[in-house]
């Protein structure tokens, strides 16, 4: 099938206002329709492109739906073990301090099995950018409860809804990380509307700048959807996210640099 286009006459190079980042490969994302992972990838690629860092970037993607990030982002990438991306990135950055290093982690990855690695990398103030996709579920393995799953929320391992008494509280890792002296910039964003996309992109740009200045860990949570895991259409899932996730995980900056 070929592309479908709007009004042909307008489609000229000089009129271009938005195109897919050249830091993305041509591979079709393996994500489900409407999944925020795709959007997050896209803008991350845009930020790298705009900062001219394609040749300077080393990404780390642990297991999770985004384990195949290396298929989609046209930069050097290491696939890491579940939960260990911050440790992996620590070594990369220390050995190649001139490079731009990021991790891209899910909530199961970052806030369950990877809790220690997350806290200690942030506490050491490693000069890396951590992107934390919080979709309240284990997407890749088929929708199990994550540390961030909301109270009462159903998943394949909380089929009757998360019961705080038995399964514990949804964990606000970003709030914890913000208390650590090693983090420099901690924010919580989303990518489900154009306005939010813009904010997230801006946050990433800041993180890039701060990393250049050796400021310490920049931590960007993106509250995101998982239409498959939540068993909703993409549009429904975004609505549900606004109504249920945002009240518990409010968007905004948690830690910003003091004006210098």
């Amino acid at each position: 099938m070929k592309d479908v286009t709007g009004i042909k006459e307008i489609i000229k190079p000089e009129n271009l206002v938005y195109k897919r980042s050249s830091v993305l490969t041509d591979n079709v994302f393996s994500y489900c329709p409407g999944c925020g992972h795709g959007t997050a990838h896209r803008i991350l690629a845009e930020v790298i492109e705009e900062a001219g860092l394609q040749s300077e970037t080393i990404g780390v993607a642990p297991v999770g739906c985004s384990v195949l990030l290396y298929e989609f982002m046209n930069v050097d990438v290491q696939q890491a073990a579940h939960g260990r991306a911050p440790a992996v990135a620590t070594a990369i950055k220390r050995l190649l301090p001139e490079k731009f290093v990021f991790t891209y982690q899910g909530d199961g990855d970052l806030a369950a099995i990877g809790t220690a690695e997350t806290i200690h990398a942030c506490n050491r103030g490693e000069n890396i950018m951590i992107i934390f996709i919080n979709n309240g579920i284990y997407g890749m393995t088929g929708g199990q409860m994550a540390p961030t799953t909301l109270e009462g929320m159903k998943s394949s391992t909380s089929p009757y809804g998360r019961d705080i008494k038995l399964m514990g509280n949804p964990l606000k890792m970003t709030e914890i990380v913000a208390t650590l002296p090693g983090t420099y910039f901690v924010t919580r964003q989303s990518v489900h509307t154009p306005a939010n996309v813009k904010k997230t992109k801006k946050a990433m740009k800041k993180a890039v700048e701060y990393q250049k200045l050796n400021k310490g860990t920049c931590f960007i949570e993106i509250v995101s959807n998982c239409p498959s895991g939540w068993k909703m259409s993409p549009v429904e899932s975004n609505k549900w996210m606004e109504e249920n996730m945002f009240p518990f995980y409010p968007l905004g900056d948690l830690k910003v640099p003091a004006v210098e």
Partner: protein
Amino acid sequence: MMERELRLMKGNEAVAEAAIRAGADGYFGYPITPQSEILEYLMEANPYKTTGMVVLQAESEVAAINMVYGGAACGKKVMTSSSSPGISLKQEGISYIAGAELPCLIVNVVRAGPGLGTIQPSQCDYFQAVKGGGHGDYHLIVLAPASVQEMADFVELGFDLAFKYRNPVMILSDGAIGQMMEKVYLKPKKNRSTVIYDWATTGKPASRERNIITSLDLDPYAQEIHNQNLQAKYREVEKNEVRLEEFQTDDADYLLVAYGTSARVSQKAVQLARAEGIKVGLLRPITLYPFPSGRLKELSRQLKGILSVEMSAGQMVEDVLLSVSGKVPVSHFGRMGGVIPTPEEVVDSLKLKIIGG
């Protein structure tokens, strides 16, 4: 010059100093007896100031091995060290490193297990090191030093082999060799390498495709091809890299097979037994993987019996048995729990299990 390079050192210290001199780029570790001196020595020596070598105390062994993964994937000479329980925690990471074909050095200064066990020296992690303690079909190249000198020498050898085959290398030592002080001749300091490997993640210039470090391939047929390539590499290693030492094997009727600390004990046992007129020799595998099966098979033609001497319940003895496939009687003598056998005990066991048996 010479004077500067002769030192009296603990095995653990020798590893650390040799790593600096070999131009290592990074060490990532976590304290555990009996090997904490490696990290301590490095922190004291502070090579970051001189060679730029990164030394980091990680939050755990799991973090440490994954730091090694990250550094190795950048084509850097990186290493970690631990002792038995810590090495068990590293198994997932080791399997990842083997699967992603990354070069690195892992030192296990073995103590007696299972569980928390004790901190005394042991060789009870042979299977874990040689057969693969992690999941999947993979091999580490395993070097077994028997002296402080070899603790130093095998660091550079280990890195060389690791990069030659893009494979993790393990130095399988034990608490005795780690804690013991001996003379050691140290090589002059090498500069850290500036080579940028074409497979490493160092930032993708326009001139090449992106580099991907992964052990994942969801398609089983692609995964099988990857595994076949790994196996082909292991066959190469088996062909090229067997290392061993022999002691009075020429005219031997009997053979002791032992590595590391028990090889030291066994060498004395050979002297004692020879003094009694028993024609016994010693084969010391230096590489536990690849195991010197070929030479053992060859020797088995002249032998009346073999005793595998290990500080374990009997692990390497299986590789000895596999090497000689029933051609000569093979037995095992070992002490466990951190007890080091004495040369006298080895001789007694040889008489009882092999000569008398």
